[in-house]
């Protein structure tokens, strides 16, 4: 059994929290005491039924305002799969929280209201999905009960979305007509839309193949920690521990340590009390080398036959996440895997109007702004492009005056 991480994009008005509540409710994932708590809550639907949206609104302010402010994570499982849902806010003001929830997702559910079709918000959410490289998209056309379960309405919306998906290079989109409120096509196949022959949402989520998300087979392991017991019996023990972020390492592989460029051979791969022949993407292990090499946290071990990009200048997409605007005159910190280095924004190439997808020149970058910049780092970064490897192609920016995470960056091209 594996885990599917997905996030939901849409506003409360689209019934996003209701959709999640429905998924949990119809898969029997809500426990009696939690159900009792929501039944006792003051908020009810107009027809007096339990408001399933309460299940996901965790904070007092969210319950008071009936909106989602921050990402809430929900967990459920079926016989086929485990699911982690990132319930993210849809309002433009909380774009940074949506980016947070989307950054770790394999799949996005984009909700639209059948009565309104594709709106500005749908374009914005779809753009973020494309920006963050989420491979699978479900366009859930919700509130079908409000349009008499009309096939014509559904078809018109899907036709329009196909044009957008093409423009955004979203390759794998699945269209499902649903009513989260009434439960149509969420877990159970709807009997009110016999014209729809596809799967219910849950059934689709159970089947979707996420086996190869990151296509990079280039072996990379950022070193997080050096294990040196320094005891009598383990006097010479030096193990480099970290998580393999792409590809795989085998014993006897020739490796290069970056940024130093030193090379060696893997003599042993350990995982606690086991010795492994191979360590693959996703595994946290400890690597031993045949020769003495100076390695510390922040270095990256890579396969010598597939070296990464190495540069101090990189063109990247930037999503700005701080209330204080980007200041191109100051130095930020850039965190790329376990590496921390100083960084400046050398150039703002363009900003994207995320409601219309138009690019335009800009000299300021404010909260929730997204666009292309050139990053200039103090140290060489051993990176891959985000399209190939999310883990080795992304970084965050930290403002050293406040220590806040102020930007999310995705490496796109070499800059000259």
């Amino acid at each position, binding site marked *: 059994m594996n885990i599917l991480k997905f996030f939901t994009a849409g506003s409360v008005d689209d019934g996003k929290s209701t959709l999640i509540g429905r998924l949990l409710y119809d898969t029997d994932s809500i426990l009696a005491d939690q159900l009792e708590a929501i039944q006792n809550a003051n908020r009810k639907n107009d027809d007096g039924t339990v408001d399933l949206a309460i299940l996901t609104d965790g904070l*007092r302010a969210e*319950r008071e305002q009936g909106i989602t402010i921050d990402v809430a994570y929900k967990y459920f499982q079926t016989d086929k799969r485990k699911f982690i849902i990132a319930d993210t806010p849809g309002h433009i003001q909380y774009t940074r929280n949506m980016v947070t929830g989307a950054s770790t997702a394999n799949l996005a559910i984009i909700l639209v209201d059948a009565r309104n079709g594709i709106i500005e918000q749908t374009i914005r959410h779809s753009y973020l999905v494309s920006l963050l490289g989420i491979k699978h998209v479900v366009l859930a056309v919700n509130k079908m009960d409000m349009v008499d379960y009309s096939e014509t309405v559904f078809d018109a919306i899907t036709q329009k979305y196909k044009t957008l998906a093409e423009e955004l290079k979203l390759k794998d989109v699945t269209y499902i007509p649903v009513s989260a409120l009434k439960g149509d096509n969420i877990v159970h196949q709807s009997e009110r839309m016999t014209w729809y022959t596809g799967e219910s949402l849950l059934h689709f989520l159970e089947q979707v193949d996420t086996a190869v998300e990151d296509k990079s087979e280039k072996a990379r392991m950022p070193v997080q920690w050096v294990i040196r017991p320094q005891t009598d019996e383990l006097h010479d023990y030096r193990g480099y521990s970290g998580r393999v972020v792409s590809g*795989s390492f085998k014993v006897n592989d020739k490796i290069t340590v970056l940024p130093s460029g030193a090379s060696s051979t893997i003599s042993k791969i350990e995982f606690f009390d086991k010795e492994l022949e191979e360590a693959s993407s996703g595994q946290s292990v400890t690597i031993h080398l045949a020769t003495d090499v100076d390695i510390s946290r922040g270095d990256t071990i890579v396969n010598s036959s597939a070296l990464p990009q190495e540069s101090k200048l990189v063109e990247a997409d930037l999503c700005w996440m701080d209330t204080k605007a980007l200041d191109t005159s100051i130095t930020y910190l850039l965190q790329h895997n376990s590496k921390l280095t100083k960084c400046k924004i050398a150039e703002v190439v363009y900003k994207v109007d995320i409601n219309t997808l138009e690019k335009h020149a800009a000299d300021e970058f404010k909260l929730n702004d997204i666009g292309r910049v050139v990053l200039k780092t103090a140290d060489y970064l051993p990176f891959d492009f985000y399209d190939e490897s999310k883990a080795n192609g992304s970084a965050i920016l930290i403002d050293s005056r406040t220590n806040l995470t102020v930007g999310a960056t995705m490496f796109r091209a070499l800059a000259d």
Partner: protein
Amino acid sequence: MSKYNFDYLDELEAEAIHILREVAGQFEKPALLFSGGKDSITLVRLAEKAFRPGKFPFPLVHIDTGHNFEETIDYRDSMVARLGERLIVGSVQQSIDEGKVVEQKGKNASRNALQTVTLLETIEKYQFDACIGGARRDEEKARAKERIFSVRDEFGQWDPKRQRPELWNIYNGKINKGENVRVFPISNWTELDVWNYIRREKIELPSIYFAHDRDVITRNGQLMAASPYVNMDDEDVVERKKVRFRTVGDISCTAAIESDAFLIDDIISEISQSKISERGARMDDKVSEAAMEDRKKGGYF
């Protein structure tokens, strides 16, 4: 790609180890909060996997309410002896004796809330900049919103409206002086995941997690251990029942459930079928809809 069969427990484990190593790499004085419960026992196992054959780069810290199940203290001491790691105990009794907190009165008095003060004092005394805890997002809805690296201010407060964005698997551990970070490596685990992991890893647990005979009273519809730490009066009827505990906290706020499950397989099938959440047996969450959010804002784990 690899033929290695990486299942969900491996994935959760690898993520938790990555987080623990980030703590080791990013902080000067981290600590692992150890309660004696299954979640913190799981954290200890994950720390072994992250750092052996080296020593843990942090001590274990137990905030001791003084109202413990004897079995968990025995377990703690033998575990620490086996690990050869350092244990620091912060005592709620001492905070009471020093007049820093006042014991609650009445029938439902509990020392659970007092722990926060002792925890914050212990953090200050040892200057911890990161405290690793075993909280999970599936436990409760305020926790469902919390980041893996959760920054607390000088007063230990969590500000849910000003959480830092947390992207990909990159954790920002930079803090200002006086702040500290609570780190939750098993955020993405569910109760069932923890039990399945304990079974797979053959981890020993304190005996109170398994069915045993115990004197209990029924309070607000829940079974509480009949113990000197629970204020009882003539209305309370002591009965002997076969019970087990699903969480291990302060005796005065941890309810038992009737159960015959004394093997881990029994427990897993019991939980799979259960219709009551684990925190449903915690009196401290029953106070209001926002009970946990309020405690976390005040510095609770």
